[in-house]
């Protein structure tokens, strides 16, 4: 589905070069929900922009269903962290969700249907005519998610989408995302610096080292598919996985890159 092969990214600055990503290779299968977690400043956003086709890697390639990504492909949607800056403030909520569909030349009847369905899925049935700045941060991010779902992407990329909302809203949005993922069967690559969030959401967690970035571990999350904030987060297995990822991220911060095996209990 989504193949990331040997991505290497060097920023050429004035008189100095910064190697942001050394070598990243991973594959995401259709319908998977994969979280990328790593210490801050480890090149997560750089990686995501390379995957999205917004940034050209120095070496390596990204393939979406076999096609090399050189520009944002039509089958990909992105949800950014900065919800307040990724919605068009001069358009209504409905207008924001609908505009990409118009660009895709989807017939107006089907368009209406997709917009209604997407806004309903994120629990925003009653704000179609409002403007983004009239909504709270959490609601704005729901609009961004609705826009992404309505677009019917093959892959949905999310760049720390819940980092700027308060803790309770964040928990709600996490559950909302799991619900949307299971209902629509979309493939999701979710970037975060929050270890708990990565373990709670993902089927797999890719742990990144600090910059220059490599993958330290590709960890399968063997928690049940039915997850909820209370039981999942208090499950012993959740604590183990969390502790394991935490250990890796701590190592990454200290510059170690030795992969460790997860102990089975």
């Amino acid at each position, binding site marked *: 589905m989504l193949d990331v092969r040997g991505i290497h990214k060097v920023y050429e600055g004035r008189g100095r070069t910064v190697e942001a990503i050394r070598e990243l290779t991973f594959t995401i299968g259709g319908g998977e929900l994969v979280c990328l977690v790593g210490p801050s400043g480890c090149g997560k956003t750089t990686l995501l922009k390379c995957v999205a086709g917004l940034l050209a890697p120095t070496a390596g390639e990204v393939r979406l269903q076999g096609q090399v990504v050189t520009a944002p492909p039509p089958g990909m949607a*992105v949800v950014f962290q900065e919800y307040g800056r990724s919605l*068009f403030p001069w358009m209504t909520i409905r207008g924001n969700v609908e*505009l990409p569909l118009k660009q895709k030349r989807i017939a107006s009847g089907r368009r209406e249907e997709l917009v209604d369905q997407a806004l309903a899925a994120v629990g925003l049935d009653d704000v179609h005519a409002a403007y983004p700045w009239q909504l*709270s941060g959490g609601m704005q991010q729901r609009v961004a998610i609705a826009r992404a779902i309505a677009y019917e992407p093959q892959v949905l990329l999310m760049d720390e989408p819940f980092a700027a909302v308060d803790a309770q809203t964040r928990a709600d949005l996490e559950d909302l995302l799991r619900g949307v993922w299971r209902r629509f069967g979309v493939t999701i690559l979710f970037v975060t610096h929050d270890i708990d969030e990565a373990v709670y959401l993902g089927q797999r967690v890719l742990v990144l080292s600090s910059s220059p970035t490599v993958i330290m571990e590709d960890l399968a999350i063997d928690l049940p598919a039915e997850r909820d904030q209370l039981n999942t987060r208090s499950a012993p297995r959740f604590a183990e996985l969390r502790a394991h990822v935490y250990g890796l991220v701590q190592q990454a911060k200290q510059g170690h890159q030795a992969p460790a095996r997860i102990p089975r209990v």
Partner: protein
Amino acid sequence: MTVAARLARRALVTLGLPLVLVAVWWVASANSESFYLPPLRRILETFADVWLSARLADDVLPSLLRLAVGYLAAVALGVAVGVPVGASRALRDVVEPVLEFFRAIPPTVMVPILILVAGIGDTMKVLVIVFGCIWPVLLNTVEGVRAIDPVLDETARCYGIRGAARLRHLVLRGASPQIVTGMRQSLSIGIILMVISEMFASSNGLGFTIIQFQRGFAIPEMWSGIILLGLVGVLLSLVFRAMEGRVLAWYHSLRRSHRDGGAA
């Protein structure tokens, strides 16, 4: 407060100072013997005779038409050039010093040159207005396009919003607050240049008529022309504000919601 009371209060706030100024002028000039500063009463008496006549069609209308054509052409040109310049760093580096140079030239000194090039007809007068009005629009458009949020731009790219749709939904809307600021500055420049361009070589127009009165020592008539110019300015700025209220409604509300500490 009832609606009527609110309206009365608004009217008082808006019209209060103008009424006081007119009253002061009226009283202070009432017994004026000065040839050049006639009583306001006499000026207003001539106002109706002078302007509510054939002059409205022969002089006022041509002036306003030239202003409209010149101003709108300047806005269109300013935006058309400003968008690519604002979007491209390389183009900006090349073009900006030249733009600053032309902007620094007072448009009035261009009048004799434009007469040589374009003659003394409407074309010259329109060109003078264009030359003066284009700079605020152009430079503000450049700033506005430059300031478009990179996150919003990337969002548009991800969702395939390209070409004409990108121009319409992202670039022009995103830069519209600055474009409107430029247009507001240009409007007052345009009114000034409308008058000045008619003072040089003309056979009709508001500026021409006022100069004629002045040269013929028709002093109350001259004053009435100046008052008419002021009224035209007020009227145009009201029209402009109504337009701005529609186009930038989202922007003003957005700013207000930020000021009040964000949304709900």
